């Protein structure tokens, strides 16, 4: 019998995270040490954006102090140094998600990555129609009568680019529905995905419901239909071990600012054979082989998709962030955050007048919880929590169709990261318990 490491044996091999370790981790995050409204900051908005550890801040500073130059051009010392750390950072991120170096494309964020894919796919049909580029573009391109399939739980970033792709190409957009517990209706998915489906795009973990979607099953349905599979890894890559090759998705995107890095940097993974034939989205300097007065030829991936001067210090900082997460151990981070998520939901469920979105306590969820407070608008809930130093997100969390599906317009969301303690969750729960009496409902 082959030796497999079950979660149980893993647990024994690697000690789980605890509050004591989190308190040490917090020392690496200067921003977390402050008082807000006279109270210690309880930061529970990492689902929107995360905080940076010193190692990340220093990596960016060191780049500017010692190596700043444009990459891939010029033969001088600094340019060589800058290019080296920039490309090393790419390798670090490729390793972080189990991809190959040339399959790892820098973007400004996940939103740009998803737009890149959607524009490259409509460009593919334009190119194919004019006999330009590789013969495979004809099958990759999206056109009239084709289907693009997303889910009801998508963030606008993984929804609007597909609406617009449908608009540009005459394809139709279809939705895999969710059930009332916030899980995808896989029976419906199997019916919806068919021969006409060209793209299946879905989120790995929901930024509102906390659900982790069954990637393998969805990929299998996508494969059966012959569709390209696009994974929105915004809420997974920062929080759990992710291997894009094992998941066998065609594309994956995520944002650096949600994984301990600065804003302005994101990652697009694409399978090499697809990236190398896809037409670019943005065009310009640094991504060409030859340019004549009326035409250009393009480099292979990743440069093919990196037009213009790149975000170098941010890429370097993102690599430092990935190293920080890898050193802590993403399996441990995931387990810790799951515990925090369960604590949130169990606590919220015990407060009268609270409706938690997504899976109930005891069911798998990531370390976040969005909820509705009966009789109090989310904005007021957020303001009340802020007065106690607790930072949460309020609104529709860029998922309006999902909120409408749930019969709500705005909710409050608490989202944890590796630097949150169980005390943070308890402070949050205690404050939420006081909301309705403060607003006299």
């Amino acid at each position, binding site marked *: 019998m082959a030796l497999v490491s079950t979660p149980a044996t893993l647990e024994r091999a690697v000690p789980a995270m605890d509050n004591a370790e989190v308190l040490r981790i917090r020392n690496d995050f200067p921003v977390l040490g402050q008082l807000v409204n006279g109270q210690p900051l309880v930061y529970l908005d990492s689902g929107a954006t995360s905080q940076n550890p010193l190692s990340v801040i220093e990596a960016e500073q060191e780049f500017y102090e010692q190596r700043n130059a444009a990459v891939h051009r010029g033969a001088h010392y600094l340019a060589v140094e800058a290019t080296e750390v920039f490309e090393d950072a790419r390798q670090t991120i490729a390793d972080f998600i189990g991809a190959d170096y040339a399959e790892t494309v820098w973007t400004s964020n996940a939103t740009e990555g998803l737009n890149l894919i959607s524009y490259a796919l409509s460009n593919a049909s334009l190119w194919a129609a004019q006999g330009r580029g590789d013969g495979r573009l004809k099958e990759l391109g999206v056109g009239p009568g084709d289907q693009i399939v997303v889910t009801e739980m998508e963030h606008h970033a993984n929804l609007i680019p597909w609406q617009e792709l449908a608009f540009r190409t005459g394809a139709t957009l279809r939705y895999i529905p969710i059930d009332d517990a916030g899980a995808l209706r896989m029976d419906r998915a199997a019916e919806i995905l068919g021969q006409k489906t060209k793209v299946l795009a879905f989120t790995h973990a929901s930024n509102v419901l906390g659900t982790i979607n069954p990637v393998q099953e969805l990929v299998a349905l996508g494969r059966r239909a012959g569709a390209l599979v696009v994974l929105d890894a915004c809420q997974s890559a920062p929080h759990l071990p992710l291997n894009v090759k094992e998941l066998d998705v065609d594309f994956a995107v995520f944002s650096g600012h949600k994984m301990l890095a600065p804003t302005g940097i994101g990652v697009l993974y694409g399978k090499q054979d697809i990236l190398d034939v896809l037409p670019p989205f943005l065009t310009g300097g640094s991504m060409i082989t030859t340019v004549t007065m009326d035409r250009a030829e393009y480099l292979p991936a990743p440069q093919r998709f990196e037009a213009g001067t790149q975000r170098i210090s941010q890429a370097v900082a993102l690599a430092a962030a990935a190293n920080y997460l890898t050193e802590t151990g993403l399996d441990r981070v995931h387990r810790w955050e799951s515990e925090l998520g369960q604590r949130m939901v169990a606590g919220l469920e015990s407060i009268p007048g609270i409706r938690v979105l997504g899976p109930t306590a005891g069911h798998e969820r990531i370390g976040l919880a969005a909820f509705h407070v009966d009789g109090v608008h989310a904005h007021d809930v957020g303001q009340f929590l802020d007065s106690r130093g607790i930072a949460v997100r309020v609104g*529709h969390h860029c998922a309006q169709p999902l909120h409408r599906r749930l019969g709500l317009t705005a909710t409050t969301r608490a989202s944890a990261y590796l630097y949150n303690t169980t005390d943070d969750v308890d402070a949050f729960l205690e404050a939420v318990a006081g909301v309705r009496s403060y607003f006299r409902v």
Partner: protein
Amino acid sequence: MSLDQLYQQIILDHSKVRHGSGLAGIAAPAGAFTGQSRQLNPVCGDEVTLRVAVEGGKVAQISWDGEGCSISMASASVLSELAEGMTVDELRAVIGTFREVLRSRGKVHADPEILGDAAAFEGVARYAARVKCAMISWVAAEDALNQAT
């Protein structure tokens, strides 16, 4: 600044008992000129649709439908109570004063003589993220007035 200065009792009361709320149930006076405006806050999804009926140069009635936080709902309620019976010019002036206070980041104080219950929103000016909530129905009223006159 404490939370209680933001959520004054007047605001909490108006957010629950909403004056002028219910477009369908309140008919505009026959013969009045009406204007209607729908305003959205895309950040949080707050929404107000407000109708102004003008008769003989005076605001005969304000009615509205909306969904949003206590600040936005109370503000619409206070506005509709305050505006009724004012001349169109008076209401325009009051809207201007309210906007000035709210955009002042707390530097301009609200005069209850002019603003009535709306002076309670003075505290909102210190919460930049909430100014839009307090303004949404007033912006709708301004727009509706322009249509009705």
